[in-house]
């Protein structure tokens, strides 16, 4: 599913072929960022809330071992079966074995980035189990055989005409129908049948409360609840970092989550699952998948505080103009770029470079993750480990040589200015990556060094 053969720059270039589409994408995400700002400003203690959330998560990371044990004990007391999975394969195997034991061949799944990371759908489909994604955006992405491009808005990169075409092709809607309400109603009735008929439902987890053993799932559509409450077997998959210590902490996180994500005061549904209903089975799979390793990286462990709101994506100038799929990782955008190298540094070596380091991501993060600092730190690790692209390594070596030698610095500077002023076509061409989507400037007549030498006397006093 993931296009790993091309790097972020190449995939972004493909996304940028359609300028009107890119401008729309850029504007749509910026609009969500603006809604987030309005929602945040309505809360006078917003900054204290962010700080509090960040400190709760610091406590979680520092005491995760004990919280996991407490959560597990309370789940068991509540009648929920707990499973542990070290990696994607083990997670998928556990889910499959739960279904197989009940001879279930159809499952309905609400949004879960973790199961996307694990490629659960492919695993189950290969073994004869049909899976439907019930979140509308994920359903559209599944029909189109593409992964989600955004953790909150899975098909934000698609125009309604494209979606209309997908519905026409796969669901038999009339050709040319692209009205969002009409398409949504069609999906509603189509998926209603699946909710009613499927015996197993899987959900993700937003917050897991160690103190009570309950877990909270947030949606706007109600799809997680439709699946869960109509199922005989309910499964939840969560990364081990989703734990929070106490129930009262939900007040902090639920005030931040939807406002940061979409500017809503709260998601329409914040469902607190604690015990199975009579006759139902509930399972919860605790998944490591690199989390414990990231916990051991002091510079990067705070990335585990993420509550998956997507605010860093909506604000990121690179994300908005390159699209989520160009990150070739389940979690895209700035947060994806600091999580992914932990999972596979070689494969994701390009992602920390897909940023201007402007810091906007860190400024909107509801749990105050220093995302842009971590992007910068990952670059250093990636170069040291030998995973940086050759052009970057050569460029940096050339730059290091130039900057460490005043003579060559001044010679190359003079040469560069002469080229810009006398033969601009030598740099204004497609062989220069900086020329793409940019005009090269006119070269100044002289460098600061030359100006300084001309205008200053030997004793440092200004010439008049």
């Amino acid at each position: 599913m993931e296009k790993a053969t091309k790097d972020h720059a190449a995939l972004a270039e493909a996304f940028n072929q359609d300028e009107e589409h890119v401008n729309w994408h850029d504007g749509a995400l910026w609009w969500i960022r603006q809604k987030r700002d309005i929602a945040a400003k309505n809360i006078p203690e917003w900054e204290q809330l962010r700080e509090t959330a960040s400190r709760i998560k610091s406590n979680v990371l520092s005491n995760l071992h004990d919280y996991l044990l407490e959560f597990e004990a309370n789940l068991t007391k509540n009648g929920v079966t707990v499973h542990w999975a070290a990696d994607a394969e083990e997670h998928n195997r556990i889910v499959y074995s739960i279904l197989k034991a009940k001879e279930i061949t159809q499952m309905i799944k609400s949004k879960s980035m973790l199961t996307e990371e694990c490629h659960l759908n492919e695993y189950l489909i290969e073994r004869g189990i049909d899976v439907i994604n019930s979140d509308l955006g994920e359903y559209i992405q599944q029909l189109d055989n593409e992964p989600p491009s955004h953790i909150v808005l899975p098909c934000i990169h698609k125009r309604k005409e494209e979606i209309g075409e997908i519905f026409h092709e796969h669901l038999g809607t009339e050709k040319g129908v692209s009205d969002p309400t009409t398409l949504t109603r069609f999906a509603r009735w189509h998926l209603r049948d699946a909710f009613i008929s499927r015996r197993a439902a899987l959900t993700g987890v937003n917050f897991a409360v160690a103190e009570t053993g309950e877990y909270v799932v947030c949606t706007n559509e109600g799809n997680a609840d439709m699946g869960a409450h109509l199922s005989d077997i309910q499964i939840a998959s969560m990364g081990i970092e989703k734990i929070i210590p106490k129930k009262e902490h939900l007040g902090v996180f639920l005030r931040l989550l939807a406002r940061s994500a979409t500017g809503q005061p709260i998601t329409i549904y914040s469902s607190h699952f604690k015990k199975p209903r009579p006759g139902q089975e509930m399972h919860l799979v605790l998944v490591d998948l690199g989390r414990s390793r990231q916990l051991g990286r002091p510079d990067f462990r705070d990335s585990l505080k993420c509550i998956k709101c997507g605010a860093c994506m909506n604000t990121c100038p690179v994300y908005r103009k390159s699209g989520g799929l160009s990150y070739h990782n389940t979690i895209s955008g700035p947060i994806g770029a600091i999580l992914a190298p932990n999972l596979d540094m070689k494969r994701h070596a390009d992602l920390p470079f897909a940023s201007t380091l402007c810091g906007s991501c860190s400024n909107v993060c509801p749990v105050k993750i220093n995302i842009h600092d971590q992007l910068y730190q990952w670059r250093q690790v990636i170069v040291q480990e030998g995973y940086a692209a050759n052009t970057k390594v050569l460029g940096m070596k050339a730059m290091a040589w130039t900057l460490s030698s005043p003579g060559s610095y001044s010679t190359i500077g003079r040469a560069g200015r002469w080229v810009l002023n006398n033969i601009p076509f030598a740099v204004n061409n497609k062989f220069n990556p900086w020329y793409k989507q940019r005009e090269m400037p006119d070269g100044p007549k002289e460098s600061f060094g030359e100006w300084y030498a001309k205008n200053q006397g030997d004793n440092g006093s200004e010439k008049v």
Partner: protein
Amino acid sequence: MSTRESILAAVLKNQPPASPLPDLSFLKGNRPDIVSTYQAVFTSIGGSVFVVDDLAAVNARLLENFDSTKRLVTTLPDLGEPFEVLSKTADPRTFNDVELAVIEAQLAVAENGAVWLPEQRMGQRIIPYICQHLAVVVRAETIVPTLHEAYAQIGVGDYGFGAFIGGPSKTADIEQALVMGAHGPITMSVFILTTN
């Protein structure tokens, strides 16, 4: 070593030194105009709010807007005819034809418009999701300023399932165009009861 033990061992080895939990006591709402705040917020979400004196007024208002030949269910026996008092033991799938469900919340939150419904108040867990339209009765004195006061009241809670619900089901997955009624109710009405 089992997967459980190896994950726990790796977490214990890699977790940073203890970091204390922050104080939450500064987090409290201060809204004297709590009912009007609730009304304004819930309306802005796309819900409807009615302030009424009793359940008879709720009944009358609903029958103006809904077809009584369709299936109308409730957990409130005092709501009266023609509402069907829903069975707590029926197969949840059998509620797929419910047009309107009327239930009563334990409390509501002014700052975000959400009502808190432990499963006992839902009758069955599926009810507020599967119905085409949802109406929730909220006693005015149970409205709290923020989620902090709400969780203080809920406490551990004697429920197997509970939910905050803050409006009709919605999606904006297609080009950010807001559509009500993604999978759950297409409308949600809240009736604020001002007297006992």
